[in-house]
């Protein structure tokens, strides 16, 4: 197909059809003060070698997760991903054929999506799971919108233990839809009384477990209270590995379960791409966002897989759609599925047990440090500790200290002038 650029006459015709006289009118929602009148003065272009050197110097200023002992979590976790996962997801048929819309040529993709859904439903102890969301935070926002559709109410209550970024995404999406969000104050010790906030206007209560501060929460009573008031309980998790050890949200009465799947099969990736996990009770199936893959038989009676529910804005009319996020991270989803398959139920439980044991060991040691208090009393692999003074300064000082014998990187030691 040849490329035919548009003429001014073409542009005027299109603008006139949509009722604007100049293309600038399409950007009216951007505050005038944010618009640049002209491009800033940029330096002259550099050679590839100069750019490589410059970027290399910038990158060398970072301390990477693999160079030093790494205890950072808060929504993204460093776990071991077997080399097998990377090897298999880089097969050409997986790197190229992402969309499952033509089942006659996408049975491999559809089969792994079906297996992924089965794994997520089993992990969360829910009836049905979809073929993955963009990530946990947008998945949480989608769950709130789903609850609004089901209950025909517009108020969501967000626990004070919900990851702040997840809460902010929910608030942003809700603002666009003129929905109400009641966000509880940060709840470091899981002491809040969410049940007292539920009323006849509440469409859903969003609670994370393990929560942002590491607390494990029993959702049973909240689930009962939600049911009594006709609201839905949305259970959130950011550490998927926890589901190998803790009681799954489905067994505690959650109506919708949503979370981040990065911990299984995916590296930190500098914050993304990640993979959202989304599951719900069977009766809410038709209101689920994203896609659903199902099992069927072909014309010859052989087992096959197809998409059975496609209600994104790309598939159906916008007013009827269950989501306008018309993408997901297919490769991350595949990595999750492969890693889960390699682990199996036994392997997942073993890894989860090691996580918990390691965290308990660290918490016990930290409790012995003068001035330090481990605040979280019931946790999986993450907890909150109180330190004297400003925590941010303590973290910075620990990052800037001369390397210990535990440092894994000679380059890091050279940068810091360490003799270790």
């Amino acid at each position, binding site marked *: 197909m040849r490329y035919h650029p548009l003429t001014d006459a073409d542009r005027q015709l299109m603008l006139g059809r949509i009722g604007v006289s100049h293309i600038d009118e399409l950007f009216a929602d951007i505050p005038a003060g944010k618009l640049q009148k002209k491009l800033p003065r940029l330096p002259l272009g550099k050679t590839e070698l100069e750019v490589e050197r410059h970027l290399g110097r910038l990158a060398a200023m970072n*301390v990477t*997760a693999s160079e*030093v*002992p*790494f*205890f*950072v*979590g*808060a929504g993204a*976790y*460093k*776990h*071991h991903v077997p080399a097998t996962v990377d090897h298999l997801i880089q097969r050409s048929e997986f790197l190229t054929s992402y969309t499952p819309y033509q089942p006659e040529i996408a049975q491999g993709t559809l089969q792994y999506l079906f297996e992924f859904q089965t794994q997520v439903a089993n992990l969360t102890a829910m009836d049905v799971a979809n073929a993955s969301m963009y990530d946990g935070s947008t998945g949480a926002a989608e769950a709130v919108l789903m609850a609004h559709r089901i209950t025909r109410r517009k108020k969501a209550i967000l626990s004070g233990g919900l*990851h*702040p*970024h997840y809460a902010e995404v929910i608030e942003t999406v809700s603002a666009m839809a003129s929905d109400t969000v009641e966000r509880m*104050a*940060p709840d*470091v010790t899981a002491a809040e009384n969410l049940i007292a906030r539920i009323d006849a206007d509440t469409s859903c209560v969003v609670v994370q477990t393990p929560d*942002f*501060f*590491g607390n494990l929460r029993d959702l049973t009573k909240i689930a009962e209270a939600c049911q009594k008031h006709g609201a839905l309980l949305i259970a959130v998790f950011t550490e998927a*590995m926890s589901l190998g050890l803790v009681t799954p949200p489905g067994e505690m009465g959650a109506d919708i379960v949503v979370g981040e799947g990065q911990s299984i099969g995916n590296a930190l990736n500098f914050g993304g791409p990640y993979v959202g996990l989304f599951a719900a009770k069977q009766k809410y199936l038709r209101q689920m966002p994203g896609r659903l893959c199902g099992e069927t038989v072909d014309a010859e009676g052989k087992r096959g897989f197809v998409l059975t529910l496609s209600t994104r804005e790309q598939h159906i009319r916008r007013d009827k759609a269950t989501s306008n996020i018309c993408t997901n991270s297919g490769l991350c989803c595949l990595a999750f599925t492969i890693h889960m398959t390699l682990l199996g139920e036994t392997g997942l439980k073993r*890894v989860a047990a*090691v*996580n918990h044991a*390691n*965290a308990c*060991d*660290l918490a016990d*040691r*930290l409790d*012995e*440090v*003068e*001035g*330090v208090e481990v*605040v979280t009393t019931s946790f999986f*692999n*993450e*907890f*909150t*500790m*109180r*330190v*004297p*003074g*400003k*925590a*941010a300064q*303590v*973290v910075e*000082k*620990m*990052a800037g*200290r001369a390397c*210990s*014998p*535990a440092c894994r990187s000679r380059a890091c030691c050279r940068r810091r002038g360490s003799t270790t």
Partner: protein
Amino acid sequence: MLAGVPVSRLLPKAGLDDLIVVANTEVNTDEDRAAFVAALEGVL
């Protein structure tokens, strides 16, 4: 040593400036945990 996330980074106005969220997975060794404690004692 990357010791965790200060709560103030994600909740800057919550008055929780003395809290750090610490994660420990299967990739952390006994050596790592010992180094963590030593580093923390060193800076406090």
